[in-house]
């Protein structure tokens, strides 16, 4: 597969009076055109910050290092003005809560056309035509009327479709969707996911889908990367990660999901609280919550080990082999 985005050793940290606070701790991954790249992890794992780092929208005071090459251009080394122009134009973004992410006081038309006009220099008329095209594409009924509306007049699912249309307006190569279905009803979720899948294939679009829900990823993603406490703990093709997950954390995430084929199996939540950026234990950050943890886990941060050429994980204990203590 051809890589569109190639991230290497991405690190994000904050300077605190008591030393640097690492949020994303040297992660690497590749995203291919026409594929959905799934990024999974609990809150505090650094997945959203990773997305914001790619867009250059990190909160003030955050430091970033590493490379993120998109079509060969390093996003992290670009001058700010050029960086800004990649936003919206080369990388589209869809945020979690479509209610708060859309401006409540501006019409859909303005919000959908302003970057088309600014980034691509469209006339007002052309931008409007393009907006109608986009709304049709994301299956909004009566696009003409929708353009005159305001966000509060739409349902949650419709608003998320509008946000996706906004993200796609300038025909970006990469679409980053951060928990795009979390704020929505389950029935609406499926529609949004199908839409993303279709757009990805039709437009040869690369999609980074960020979510805590492996269920969502299993349905949609081509590859899955699982993050914990700012590090990648496992990555691989979706089927492998779901069916043959090797890392205890991935297994924990899967066990906490309802299983369609074994509805009566009890859900097993992962014990303990996820490690936030300011409470990461030494060694493997997951060890306090891990039932397979051995002594080395408490001291040594595990490296990624190749399971096969496309699948790797960072755990010295193989839960498929190890028995429960």
């Amino acid at each position, binding site marked *: 597969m051809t890589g569109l985005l190639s991230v290497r050793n991405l690190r994000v940290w*904050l300077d605190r009076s008591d030393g640097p606070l690492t*949020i994303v701790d040297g992660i690497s991954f590749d995203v291919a055109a026409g594929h959905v790249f799934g990024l999974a992890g609990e809150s505090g794992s650094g997945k959203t*910050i990773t997305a914001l780092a790619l867009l250059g929208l990190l909160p003030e*005071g*955050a430091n970033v290092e590493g490379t993120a090459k998109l079509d060969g251009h390093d996003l992290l080394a670009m001058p700010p003005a050029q960086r800004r122009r990649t936003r919206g134009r080369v990388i589209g973004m869809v945020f979690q809560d479509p209610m708060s992410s859309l401006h409540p006081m501006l019409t859909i038309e303005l919000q959908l056309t302003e970057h088309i006009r600014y980034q691509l220099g469209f006339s007002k008329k052309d931008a409007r035509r393009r907006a109608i095209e986009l709304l049709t594409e994301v299956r909004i009924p009566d696009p003409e009327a929708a353009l005159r509306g305001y966000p509060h007049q739409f349902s949650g699912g419709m608003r998320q479709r509008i946000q996706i249309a906004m993200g796609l307006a300038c025909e970006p190569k990469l679409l980053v969707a951060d928990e795009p279905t979390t704020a929505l009803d389950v029935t609406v979720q499926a529609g949004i996911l199908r839409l993303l899948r279709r757009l990805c294939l039709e437009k040869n679009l690369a999609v980074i889908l960020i979510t805590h829900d492996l269920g969502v990823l299993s349905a949609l993603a081509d590859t899955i990367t699982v993050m914990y406490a700012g590090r990648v703990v496992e990555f691989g093709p979706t089927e492998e990660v779901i069916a043959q997950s090797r890392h205890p954390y991935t297994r924990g995430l899967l066990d906490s999901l309802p299983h369609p084929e074994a509805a009566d199996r009890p859900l097993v939540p992962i014990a303990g609280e996820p490690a936030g950026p300011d409470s990461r234990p030494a060694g493997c950050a997951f060890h306090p919550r891990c039932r397979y943890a051995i002594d080395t886990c408490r001291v040594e941060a595990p490296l990624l080990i190749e399971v096969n050429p496309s699948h790797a994980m960072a755990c010295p204990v193989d839960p498929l082999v190890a028995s429960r203590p």
Partner: protein
Amino acid sequence: MSAAGRLVGLGVRGFRRTPVAWQNPLAVVGIAVAGAWLLVALFAPVIAPHDPLAPTAALYQAPSWAHPFGTDDVGRDVLSRVLWGARVSIPLALLLVGLAYTIGCTLGGLAGYLGGWVDELIMRGADLFFAVPQILLAMAVVGALGPGLFHAVLAVVVVSWPGPARVVRGLVRTTMQSDFVAVARLVGAPTSRALTVEVLPNVAGPVTVLAALDMGNAILLLSALSFLGLGARPPDAEWGSMVSTGAQHFESWWMGMFPGLAIVSVVLAFNLIGDSLRDTFDPTTTVTPLGK
């Protein structure tokens, strides 16, 4: 709140590049200046170099080493008069804000606590005061009572109570409707206890901020009345009336300039304190200053 939102929130606290020293030095300046004026008010008889009231032959002298702020139309030392002026404005402003807040908080608390027609009556009454500029009402009251410093203070109290009343009523109402008061009642705590333990602390903070901001407004209003000849009158050493006298002697600019600067510095000090208190109490909420 999304994960990003939480992190951005963390950012506001966690990664501010600005040195911490910048955050509150202005409050320190405010406290220092206000404190200095309090000391001046206490010790004016000791530190003032000249008699503030006795005329001398040295008329209209420009600022010099002997008279740093110059002398006025009857030869009095302007510096001494400005220092003595602190004895008028500051204690009166404290008295006035204390009175207005006692009345306002009581009425507002009653309105918020009792609700019903008491609430309607008090708050509709307060609305009347908001509809007419404070100074106009105060002028009418002084007009009826006759000019004089004491009457001016009364007038400012009469027009100042609705501000705190409205704020306290709102705070009491929201606190009364909050879950923890409901819980306190549920476990059988007497209402008076709920009031002192739950309501009072929630009201005290914002009211302190407002009172600090209103100290400045009270001094401004009182000096304005004196300037108009309705409060303190010559030869009293009061800043507003000194500015008024200075207005008739433009060639001796120091006569009006320095008392005015005194007002600015005191009021600004109180406003700096109030503004920083507001930021400290809750950086997200906006408290409406009461001045009109």
